[in-house]
């Protein structure tokens, strides 16, 4: 069944969407879009490392992204630079270093476009295992830290005062971010991963009145984006990442009509 590259891509994409749905809501709630971008940019370094050392891409990306996240936390503590400057610094320098390293790797045939924008032809059966097992683990951990993470997103001091240990939840969530980027990089491409996280969640915000319903809509939006995007990619021979993100954008635009109605009702 998994012989067909398209079926593999579809199964991989659906696996990714199940994880990006809930995680994307937190990215929006906690204002982490640029943090996600920074981790994704640093993923290129992870990929090149994987090629040089003949190592699994997902694991290598996960390790490098986690290290970048740790460096960011340290820089935030030790410097007086604002957060967005630090994010930009890390994002662009790790992307640059990654591209320089790619330049040295002339002995390997390198599909840089596939890396940046996703390539459905590249999804192997091993990747499916990584996406579904890794994805299930991410969701399990997210469920375990949901209460403290959500409470501290609403109000840090309430969560801390009432004994929920929000700092630990935040640290674990950072690792989950690195993990989702690692497992979705082949599918969506490193430049568009954050789009996969935030656009379905943004669409869901327009439709929902409670956190739970936002998570559900966000997951459904992600699934639809993947399915529509991949069929488009197959039909018109476009890169998988941009096709999925464009589908997500269309869904977001559709969701705007729903908001308009509620605003009208309020007036």
């Amino acid at each position, binding site marked *: 069944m998994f012989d067909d590259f398209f079926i593999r891509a579809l199964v991989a994409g659906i696996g990714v969407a199940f994880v990006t749905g809930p995680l994307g809501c937190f990215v*929006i*709630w906690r204002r982490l879009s640029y943090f996600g971008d920074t981790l994704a940019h640093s993923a290129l370094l992870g990929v090149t490392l994987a090629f040089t050392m003949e190592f699994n891409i997902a694991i290598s990306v996960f390790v490098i992204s986690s290290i970048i996240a740790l460096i960011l936390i340290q820089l935030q503590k030790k410097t007086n630079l604002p957060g967005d400057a630090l994010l930009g610094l890390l994002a662009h320098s790790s992307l640059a270093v990654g591209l320089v390293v790619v330049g040295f790797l002339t002995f390997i045939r390198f599909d840089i476009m596939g890396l940046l924008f996703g390539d459905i032809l590249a999804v192997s059966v091993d990747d499916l295992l990584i996406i579904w097992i890794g994805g299930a683990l991410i969701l399990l951990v997210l469920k375990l830290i949901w*209460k403290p993470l*959500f*409470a501290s*997103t*609403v*109000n840090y*001091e*309430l*969560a*801390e*005062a*009432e*004994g*929920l240990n929000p700092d630990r939840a935040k640290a674990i969530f950072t690792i989950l971010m690195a993990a989702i980027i690692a497992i979705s990089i082949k599918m969506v491409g490193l430049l568009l991963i954050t789009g996969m996280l935030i656009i379905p969640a943004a669409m869901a*915000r327009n439709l*929902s*009145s*409670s*956190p*739970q*319903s*936002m998570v559900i809509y966000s997951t459904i939006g992600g699934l639809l984006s993947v399915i529509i995007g991949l069929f488009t990619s197959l039909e018109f021979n476009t890169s998988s990442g941009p096709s999925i993100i464009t589908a997500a954008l269309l869904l977001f635009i559709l969701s705007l009509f729903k908001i308009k109605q509620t605003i009208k009702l309020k007036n």
Partner: protein
Amino acid sequence: MSTDQNILVKLNDAGLQLNNKWLVKGVSLQVEKGEIVTLIGPNGSGKSTTAKIALGIYKKIDGSVEKYTNKVGYVPQKISIDWTLPLRVNDFMMLTESLNKDTIDEALSLTGVIHLKDKNLGDLSGGEFQRVLLARAISKKPDLLVLDEPVQGVDFTGEIALYELIKKISDELSCGILLISHDLHTVMSATDHVVCLNGHVCCSGSPMDVAKNNEYKALFGEQASQILSRYEHKHDHIHTDEGEIKKN
């Protein structure tokens, strides 16, 4: 001592320094089960900071905090909630602990906002939100309640009712309450122990002890002192153990 088992939180010479400036220094106090301890003091005297130290929100403090319970309900003075979150009152009630429907309904009814249960949190008025905050804190049936100006923005009749409710909760749940309030009338009617802060503990004791204290008079003025003595006159039946920190 048997009373030691009743201690919920204890501050030993606690203080907090930020950017080489002391926000509050050398505070020692304790809250026991069934007791209401009230912090009073002018603006910037470190009341909220002291409450947060007691809650363990600040990590790098001077002195020490001993907290003997994890069942805590907190009503902060200022709360910045990101209204981009889709959050109804009902979701907010379950923020730090999963509660069943009856518990939530009961708490919301007690503070008079049951009709707002399915409303978006961002659509509430200041006073309504304050009532929801209080309902959330008491719904957990905590051992320790920390209330930082819990009735700010609440209408006059509501204010009295809510203070009565707080008193009732303290009796029924026999939880300890650390209260911050500007309303000296209320402070004196329901409190077992008053701590008067001004960057440090300027005086503490039973409400009447504090009222007679000269430092207190200097800080709040002669008038505030008179409020208290007038109060003493009207309601002396409540304080049967004058001068005692604990009520019977």
